[in-house]
């Protein structure tokens, strides 16, 4: 016990330090401008926006699993509602943080509220993410007392809003890219389904990793059987994601049109190839093979490895999806585009293709947001599940496991509210 709390303490300290560093560098960025990042007039978005997409996606898994459990009455999955919704909340806050960090004119950010333009997908996203965050918070509050008749009812209603909004959040984020006719690699009807499917697999994968960690930290108990069945669902999500990627790639490849061919060449053999192939092999094929056999996915370490690979794979996908479309300029020719920095020499001022690599400042800020997310989760987790019955949300056929959980977490009185379910 002593050991567990020192571990937790050191995790908190490390995260707090990293967060503080990130905040410090962000303040520096505000004073200096985005010039301290690697972004430029060619690649005008970079790591921040990739992380924004990534975290919006990660946030999906939690809420979609929790709310569809409620909407479709998948009793088993309801058990993980609390860690899942907390994960979803923390991830969407991180995503929103990345959007704010990416703004060049943060001091004018209130214009989003006083001067909105409703034709902008970015505006849609601001609205939908705000609603989504609100739903997450309501969900969390309700999950604190799920055994009360009233909050069970409210929970059932909230979950019916949560599911469509969760899907919408990922679609709208996709449309920020998918509606840009300027970019051959983005402008595609598959963008929204593709985002939703990578949100599903990466989000569920992260949830699985978190559940295993919580198990180890004795903060929240999830049975091996439930982990295995969630892992089975993950295998299905991976297959759907792979199918979407395949559909997109084959549609781009088949006509052999020059613009699409360029994007494809960059992906499969060019600068983006490591990211692309890692995602395809490490993020889709390998984890799918690990999870598709029920004997393998019953082994928790296998699930952890596969899930981690899926999360990393989707991160790689965010990177290639974002950057590939910045490489070629639609109207190109020497000397190219003015890069956007004064101190560069005459020859460096020009760039014939979009180039980008993140700077230290960007990496530190990104790490800071990551640490903040872990910090918030670690701080809130014991408050949210430590003192509360974990199984009050569901009635369970496996009384044996049930009883064990009772003893472990909250004592027998918690069994009272089990039938309070609506829906």
């Amino acid at each position, binding site marked *: 016990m002593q050991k567990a709390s020192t571990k937790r303490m050191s995790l908190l300290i490390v995260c707090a330090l990293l967060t503080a560093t990130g905040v410090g560098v962000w303040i520096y960025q505000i004073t200096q401008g985005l*010039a301290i990042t690697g972004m430029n007039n060619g690649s005008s978005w970079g790591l921040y926006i990739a992380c924004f997409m990534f975290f919006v996606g990660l946030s999906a898994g939690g809420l979609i699993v929790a709310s569809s459990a409620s909407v479709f009455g998948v009793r088993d999955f309801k058990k993980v509602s609390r860690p899942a919704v907390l994960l979803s909340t923390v991830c969407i806050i991180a995503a929103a943080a990345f959007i704010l960090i990416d703004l*060049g*004119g943060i001091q*004018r950010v209130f214009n989003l509220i006083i001067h*909105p*333009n409703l034709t*902008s997908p970015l505006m849609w996203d601001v609205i939908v993410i705000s609603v989504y965050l609100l739903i997450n918070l309501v969900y969390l509050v309700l999950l604190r007392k799920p055994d009360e008749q009233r909050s069970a009812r409210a929970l059932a209603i909230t979950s019916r809003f949560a599911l469509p909004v969760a899907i919408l959040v990922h679609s709208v984020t996709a449309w920020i*890219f998918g509606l*840009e006719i300027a970019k051959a690699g983005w402008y595609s009807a598959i963008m929204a389904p593709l985002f939703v499917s990578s949100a599903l697999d990466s989000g569920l994968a992260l949830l699985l990793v978190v559940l295993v960690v919580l198990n180890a930290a004795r903060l929240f108990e999830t049975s091996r059987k439930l982990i295995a069945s969630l892992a089975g669902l993950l295998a299905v999500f991976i297959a759907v994601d792979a199918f979407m990627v395949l559909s997109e790639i084959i549609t781009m490849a088949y006509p052999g049109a020059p613009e699409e061919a360029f994007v494809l060449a960059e992906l499969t053999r060019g600068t983006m190839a490591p990211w692309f192939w890692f995602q395809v092999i490490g993020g889709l094929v390998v984890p799918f093979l690990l999870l598709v056999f029920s004997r393998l996915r019953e082994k928790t370490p296998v699930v952890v490895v596969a899930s981690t690979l899926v999360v990393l794979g989707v991160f790689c996908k965010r990177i290639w999806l974002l950057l590939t479309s910045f490489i070629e300029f639609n109207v190109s020719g020497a000397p190219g585009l003015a890069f*956007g920095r004064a101190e560069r020499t005459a020859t460096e001022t020009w760039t014939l293709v979009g180039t980008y690599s993140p700077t230290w400042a960007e990496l530190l800020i990104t790490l800071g947001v990551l640490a903040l997310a872990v910090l918030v989760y670690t701080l809130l987790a014991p408050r949210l599940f430590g003192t509360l019955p974990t199984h009050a949300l569901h009635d369970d056929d496996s009384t044996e496991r049930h009883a064990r959980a009772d003893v472990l977490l909250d004592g027998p009185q918690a069994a009272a509210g089990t039938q309070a379910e609506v829906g």
Partner: protein
Amino acid sequence: MTRLAIAISQERCTGCQTCVNACKMENNVPMGMLWNRVITVGTDVMDGAVGSYPNLSKEYLPLACQHCENPACMAVCPVGATYKDEKGRVLINYDLCIGCRICMAACPYNARCFNWEEPVRDPDFNYGHRDVPVRPRGVTEKCTLCKERTDADLEPMCVVCCPTRARTYGDLDDPESEISKLIREKHAYQLLPERGTNPQVHYYK
């Protein structure tokens, strides 16, 4: 209605880059960025030729904001900082711009520049026209069709300074204007018409 525009003769353009510098001076464009560029099409060296000897060709393309009739940049701007004014110019309200740069991703012509840093000028003073607003760090900027000049019924600086008179400025909505006639008679074309942005800037040979 008025739809101000420029028509550019690619036959006349010699790639001298005069309009590039005229624009930069007039509009106080900081170091490291340009509102107007002249590219040599299809090569990675300036003034380079395309093809293999002796079948060579060389083509220059002056490139700035196309003042699209259906501006992709305007639709996506979350705060409505990018707008089309009553004279058909696509402009940016720098007080509204939050620097999200979705407009840069949306513009098919890479016409927009961003103030990544505190603007640097060399020589170190505002060399632009006194009425041209000085843009702060963190906002996007691009060709305004020399708003301050065209508001005063003067031609844009690139049009005035072009030594080969490759540029013609005027109103597309006036069928008798020189630019409308040129576009009709020379079968002028637009850049990337398939993007549906419908540029007001036209090219002809």
